[in-house]
Every structure is written in structure tokens, then in C-alpha cells.
């Protein structure tokens, strides 16, 4: 099945570019320990998902590029053109002259409705090129105006126009110490509205990725490209083809559908986070070997201690022994991270030897879902993106509670002071709407807290 990607705003377009670039370079990289037949199949499935092939064999993305100003889209198109491996469909882009000015309301209430028809038309053209449509993957940041405001509006349009298709929103969470001063307002508006129309939100935090770049990748002067490459790697590690069941040995044909099926058992919980391991500079990679037990032990502890990368993991956090009333206080103390559902994706050599019993521990999960339903494992012997072995964990858990609580708290204080509110009312988002947004988010926080 194919997925149509929609890249929105500066961030969405930059991340989208790196995403496709990694998919392509992975396609052409050494297959590791998979057989030729397996590898051919891997390539075929990947191509079907995200690209269509021109007669000359060129890969063209199933993507729509959208921005309200022209510089980023034109740069993205030309970079892809130069890559030689793949390109965008140049008719599948839409840009305007003047950006949304970091104003969510401007994107959602003005630019969104104004350009809805053109953009949805571009989407439709991509959909028509798919033999079977699996769903939509939108990439956007929450901080700015175009990605967040217009992205949210278009998500709603996609939901209306394709009620049976799946919508996954890749959302980039801004740096805690601002990129954009009104980022907390833009973020809560984005999250609350996406919660209504999206099937799941896959979140990447800039602060975490930045740390990965400096501490794990060992990059001295970190650029946005470095950050985006890490995000792209993590996304690729989910979306590249993988076997979804032990017996059938066939690649997952409906990536979004199966992802949602594993991870979103209840509409109240749809925030997904991602951890992967290992992650290091190419230089160190050449000198490292890994074994599955070691990797998975780390990955499990990252999950339960809510460590977002492989460094600084708190090894003292343990799952609560008894699911009793005192569970909550105990958890608070040790910062135990309770999950709704987890999906592990293993790629590389000897993958069949890996044991994941540790992820099936009942105390890791809520009482209302059995570990067998809450945990899913996908794997493939095909190595991904130069890593001989790599493991990715997508989880629907309490991992985002703290950053979410932070953003809502800051936005609330700003709102109580009435600062910047006039910038939003100007475009039709009034105080009432803000209050509704706060209610939605407090509800999400409460739900996840009470897991």
C-alpha cells in the first residue's frame, strides 16, 4: 500500500527531504544478511510505499510540498533534484509569497481555507497515482504558523475528504527555550485540533534530538540538517519494510494501518514517541559491535525509565511489583513510565535470536490491556541505514507528559496575562477557543497521568 506524504512549512519540508533521502540511500546500501530475494522484495515494497517509478526508472516521491513562502520549497526541490537518486514531482508543490508569520490563527483561519482547494487537488493527484492508498503522513512543526496552523487545517480537510484513510501526523516539538516566542500557544492549538482529526501523532522533540546529535553522534557544531537527519533516520527505521508476523514472512503491506492497530487501542491515547538504539557517528560505528541482548536491555530500560536516548538512563527505575493502590505514588517516586502499547522493530543480523520477553511484563502496561495485545514485535534481517543491528521502539506511553505539562503551564500563564492574545483574535481565534483548547489538553494530560 502507498502512503502520501504532505510536507508543511519550513520544518516539514526540511525533515521531509531528509526522510526521503534516507529511504533512498538505505535502498541502495548493503543488504546486510538478507538474501538477494529478500532484499529485492524490500526494495519493491519501500518503493511502492513512498515513491512511484517513472518509465526511466527514476524514483519520484508520493509527496506534496506546501509552504506559504517560496524559499524553502524551491531549495528542497533543487536539493532533491541534485541527489540523483530520487526527486519530487515538481508539479506537486504549492507555495505562496508571504509566510504565516508564526501565527497559528493566520495559518488555520486564513491561509488554510484560502488555499484548501489547490492543495487538496495536489493531494488528490498523488492519491490517484496510488494503486492502493494506505493513508497520509504529514510532517510539520508545532511552533511556527504554516506547519502548525495550516497543517492542522489540512489534516482536518484530509479527514473530511478521506474519512476511511489513516492519518499520521509527524509533529516536531520545539526547543524548550524558544525558537518562536508564541510557540506554546501555537503548540497547544495544534495539539488540541489534531487530537480531533488525526489518528495518531508521532512526536519528535528538538531538545532530545539535539542531545542525540551532541552526545551520541558527537557533532560539534550542530546544524538543522544534522537534527533533521536524526529525525529522518528514526522515521526510516519505522517505515522501511519489515515482517509483521512470525509465520507469514511477508513484509508489512499497510504500514500506517498496522502501526495504528498495534499502538492506538483507544482514541483518548494517540501520542506516539520513538526511541531507537544504537545511534552513533559513522566513525564510531565502524568500531562497534552489538548483541541483541545488550541492545534490548538498554531499550527496555529506556522505556520504563523514560530515557529518550541511550545515555543517562536511570537504571534504578523498576516496574512496580504489585498493581495496587500505592502504585501511583511509587511510580511518581521512581518516574516509572507506564505504557498503553509498544511496538518494537528490530532490523539486522541474527534478528531471530533476539528475545523480547522483558517487553511483555504485565506491570509495564495498563490493567485494561493484556501484554499480548499491548506489545507487538516486527523484525527483518535486512540491516537499516548502515547499522548492522538496530532496534526501534514506538510507544504510546506517559513519555510526553512532562513536556506537555510544561507547554500547557507556560501557555496558561501567558494567557492569564493576556499577552499576545490580540494577535490571534485578529484572525478569529478568540479567548473562548483558547479555553476550549486548554480543556482538551488538560484532559489529555489527566488521561495519561491516570494510566
Amino acid at each position, binding site marked *: 500500500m502507498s502512503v502520501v506524504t504532505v510536507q508543511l512549512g*519550513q520544518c516539514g519540508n*526540511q525533515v521531509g527531504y531528509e526522510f526521503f533521502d534516507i529511504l533512498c540511500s538505505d535502498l541502495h546500501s548493503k543488504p546486510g544478511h538478507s538474501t538477494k530475494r529478500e532484499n529485492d522484495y524490500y526494495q519493491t515494497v519501500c518503493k511502492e510505499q513512498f515513491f512511484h517509478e517513472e518509465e526511466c526508472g527514476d524514483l519520484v516521491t508520493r509527496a506534496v510540498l506546501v509552504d506559504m*513562502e*517560496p*524559499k*524553502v520549497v524551491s*531549495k528542497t526541490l533543487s536539493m532533491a533534484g541534485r541527489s540523483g537518486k530520487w526527486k519530487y514531482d515538481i508539479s506537486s508543490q504549492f507555495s505562496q*509569497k*508571504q*509566510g*504565516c*508569520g*508564526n*501565527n497559528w490563527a493566520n495559518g488555520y483561519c486564513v491561509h488554510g481555507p484560502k488555499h484548501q482547494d489547490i492543495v487538496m487537488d495536489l493531494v488528490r493527484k498523488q492519491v490517484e497515482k496510488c494503486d492502493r492508498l494506505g493513508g497520509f503522513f504529514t510532517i510539520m512543526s508545532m511552533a511556527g*504558523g504554516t506547519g502548525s496552523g495550516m497543517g492542522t487545517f489540512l489534516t482536518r480537510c484530509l479527514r473530511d475528504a478521506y474519512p476511511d484513510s489513516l492519518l499520521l501526523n509527524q509533529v516536531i516539538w520545539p*526547543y*524548550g*527555550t*524558544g*525558537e*518562536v*516566542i*508564541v510557540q506554546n500557544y501555537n503548540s497547544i492549538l495544534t495539539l488540541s485540533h489534531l487530537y480531533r482529526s488525526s489518528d495518531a501523532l508521532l512526536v519528535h522533540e528538538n531538545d532530545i534530538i*539535539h542531545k542525540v*546529535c*551532541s552526545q551520541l553522534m558527537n*557533532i*560539534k*557544531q*550542530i*546544524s*538543522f*540538517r544534522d*537534527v533533521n537527519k536524526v529525525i529522518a533516520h528514526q522515521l526510516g527505521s519505522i517505515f522501511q519494510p519489515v515482517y509483521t508476523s512470525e509465520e507469514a514472512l511477508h513484509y508489512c503491506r499497510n504500514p500506517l494501518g498496522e502501526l495504528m492497530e498495534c499502538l492506538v487501542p483507544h482514541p483518548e491515547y494517540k501520542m506516539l514517541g520513538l526511541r531507537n538504539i544504537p545511534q552513533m557517528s559513522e566513525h564510531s560505528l565502524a568500531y562497534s559491535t552489538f548483541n541483541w541482548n545488550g541492545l534490548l536491555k538498554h531499550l527496555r530500560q529506556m522505556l520504563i525509565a523514560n530515557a529518550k536516548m541511550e545515555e543517562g538512563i536511570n537504571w534504578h527505575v523498576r516496574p512496580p511489583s504489585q498493581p495496587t493502590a500505592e502504585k501511583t505514588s511509587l511510580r511518581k517516586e521512581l518516574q516509572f513510565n507506564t505504557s498503553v502499547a509498544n511496538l518494537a522493530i528490530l532490523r539486522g543480523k541474527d534478528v531471530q535470536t533476539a528475545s523480547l520477553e522483558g517487553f511483555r511484563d504485565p506491570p509495564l502496561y495498563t490493567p485494561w490491556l493484556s501484554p499480548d495485545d499491548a506489545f507487538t514485535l516486527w523484525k527483518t534481517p535486512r540491516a537499516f541505514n548502515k547499522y548492522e543491528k538496530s532496534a526501534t521502539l514506538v510507544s504510546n506511553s506517559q513519555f510526553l507528559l512532562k513536556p506537555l505539562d510544561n507547554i*500547557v*503551564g*507556560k501557555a*496558561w*500563564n*501567558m494567557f*492569564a*496575562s*493576556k*499577552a*499576545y492574545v*490580540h*494577535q490571534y483574535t485578529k484572525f478569529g481565534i478568540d479567548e473562548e477557543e483558547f*479555553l476550549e483548547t*486548554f*480543556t482538551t489538553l*488538560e*484532559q489529555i*494530560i*489527566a488521561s495519561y497521568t491516570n494510566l
Partner: protein
Amino acid sequence: MTQSIVVQVGQCGNQIGCRFWDLALREHASVNKKGIFDEALCSFFRNVDTRAEAGGADAQRGKICSLKARAVLIDMEEGVVNEILQGPLRDLFDSKQLITDVSGSGNNWAVGHKLYGGQYREHIVENLRRTAEQCDCLQCFFVIHSMGGGTGSGLGTFVLNVLEEEFPEVYRFVTSVYPSAEDDVITSPYNSVLAMKELTEHADCVLPIENQALVDIVNKINQMANTGKLGNVKSNSLLTSNKGGIKENEKPFDAMNNIVANLLLNLTSSARFEGSLNMDLNEISMNLVPFPQLHYLTSSLTPLYTLADVNVPTRRLDQMFSDAFSKDHQLIRADPKHSLYLACALMVRGNVQISDLRRNIERLKPFLQFVSWNQEGWKTGLCSVPPVGHSHSLLALANNTCVKPTFIELRDRFSKLYRKKAHLHHYMQVDGMEQHCFTEAISSLSSLIEEYSQLDASKGIHVSYPPRLNII
């Protein structure tokens, strides 16, 4: 990409404008080596086909034919504008872009605002409209004027009102040069306070500049450059330098005016050139103006010069960030570090990455006070094209209560004159000027000062907010 129009009013406005156009050409020439009329150039310039059969129509893309500034030049005397028309930049303007008179405004706000305003309104509107029609997406007007005199202050703020009426959707950024305390125009406090009311009510953003602050920066640069302490300074990198422009021989105010011209270039760089974190003009007011009237932004430019030595250590990069917060780099005499920040933007150009920005924000944050509801009030932009002569540069824009002393000083000087009703009759003679214009202007200024005082009072005090919503 969008376009902007510069409206330069009065002697000061036109002199700064003139420096702006020269340095803008210098900047684009250094980026655009092929002489192709590109999107970046299009934001401030038109490419006009001057051949007779084309009749002065806009040549579209392709080779540069003849560049025309997107500008309207207004002065009520002819001296400065004539000088521009006879100088090396004359080809940038045609006579349709000029509005002049011969008799001047006599340092009287009322003459500029009421008399000439009424008289020239049609002419001004027509001129602005024509210039606006030459843009396919007009985003911003930059008004450049001074506060102390008659034309810049009076007619300049009149133009601002006209812009709001005629182009309500287009942003209005005003660069206002405030008079020094020992200004030789005796009525400058009146003119400034009368103009302030208009700025507070009708501008989206005001960038206040103080003459004295510019003088101090010029002296500092001269001192450094002359003592030879610097070793080799790249001569075109001085913030005050004409070097590389069309007009190389400097006039007395050029050094000061070049600083302001560089401010405008850096302010618009991210809208004109590409970068990894763009910052469009409409993001400035969105991020830096939390309450409609508090739109006065202090600015600082660093570095003041770049050494010829190309090995730039990180330390020097970090110094650029530190300097932007020191009081001797501000374009008004003010000390942001010891006042309260409502919001702060860092617009970086050149070879600087997001990690350099993060590091410096973390490093500087402990020394700065932010208002309690905006503790992380940073807006950042990364433009990959550095200014001429530099490898990197920074423009810091702050919405900070440090502007208050300047406003208080202005009010005191106004009151001193007003108490004695000195020179009032010159103003009252002008049709449409009434006593209440003065009282309203001073109370508008006072309430602005009061707003800043209230914010200042919250400094260091724990503010309690209403409890968050509770989900039952």
C-alpha cells in the same frame, strides 16, 4: 517573495535612506555576482526596462536592466533630495517618486503634520499607490524619519496615518531617530512627544534610534580603528563604513547613518535570503509585541567590525552574542541587561548553526531578566548570507522596559517648555492645531510610561497565576 517599500521623510530620513540604498546595492552585488535580477533583489528594487519602446515597464526576470528603488522620498525642502538626485544614486529614483516643497517645516510638527499633511495628502497617496502597484506582494512599509524636526516628525507621522488608512494589511515599521538632550532644535521635545502619540497608535513596530548612541558607537569604532589595537580590520566590515558602496567619500553623518542602514539590512536579510531558520518580517511583530501599544524595540548590531584574520575562533563568535546585550552596543542609550525583557529576537547571519545559538542563549539567559509569563521569550532566525565584509553577524531586537528612561527624559523636557507655554503660539497658528493636541500627546506618552512601569514593578516579584483548569 514579498516586497517592501521605504518611505523616507525629512532631512534625516532621506539621508539615512540614501545610505540604505547604497549599502543595499553593495550587499546584493556581493551576493549576486551574475547580475541577474533575482527574488532577493526584487524585495527592495524594481528592474526597469529603460529602452524607449518599453516605456519604462518592469522588465521581469533575467538580466538587470536598470534598478529602481521601491521608495518614496518626501521632504519639504529641496536640499537633501536634490543632492541625492545629483549624486551617484540618482538612477535609482525617478521624479515620480519624489515629493518636495521649498519652504521647509520650520522645526514645527504642526506645520509638517497639519499644514503639509493636508496640502500633500492626495499627492502622497497617489505616489504610495503607484509604488505599491509595482509590487506583486507588498508586505511592509519602512518609514524612516527623525522625531525632533518638523517634516520628519510631523509629516512622517502623517504618512504613517495615511498608510494605515490606505493599506491596513501592510505592516508599518518605523525607524525613528530621537533627538539628543542637547539638541539644537529648541522645539524638539514638542515635536517628539506629538509624534510619539502617532507612533504608539499607528505603527506595528518602532525601532527607536538615539543620535547620541550612534555618536558613541562611531567614536568607539574610530578609536579602535585609529589606535591600531585591532591589527588588520577589514575596511568594508566597519558598521560605519561606506567602503565598497557607490559613494566612497564620506560626509559627516554618513558613519552614523550607515549604522541605521545596516540595521535595516539585517532586519530584512532573512526575508530576502535563504537560511536554515527563516524569519520573515511578519514574524517580528508577532513574536515581539505582546500588547499592541508596547511595540518599541531596542536594537543592537554586532560585531562592529571584523578582523582581516580569517581564523575566527568560537570565543569571538560568543563575544558577538555577549556584546549584543551590553549597553554600549544598543542603538539607543539604554541598558537592557538591567531592565526587564518582554521578548527578545536574535537574527543571525552567516556561518552560525543552531547549536551556536542554543549555547549562547543558555549562557546569557541567567544574566537577563524576562517577564514572568515569558521566561523563554526568545525568537531566533538563521540566515545563511552574511553581511558584506563579515563571516557572521547578529541583530538583537528586544522588547525591553529599558526604553522607559528615554521616554521619561522626553516627557520632562516637554514639560519644562510646556509649563512656560514657550513657543506654543507657533503651533497654534497652524490650522487644525489645538491645545488638546498637546495634552493628549503628553497623556498618551504618560500612559505608555505607566505600562512599562507596571511591568517593571513585577520584576523579581513572584507572580501568582490563576490555577490551571481542573479536569474532573
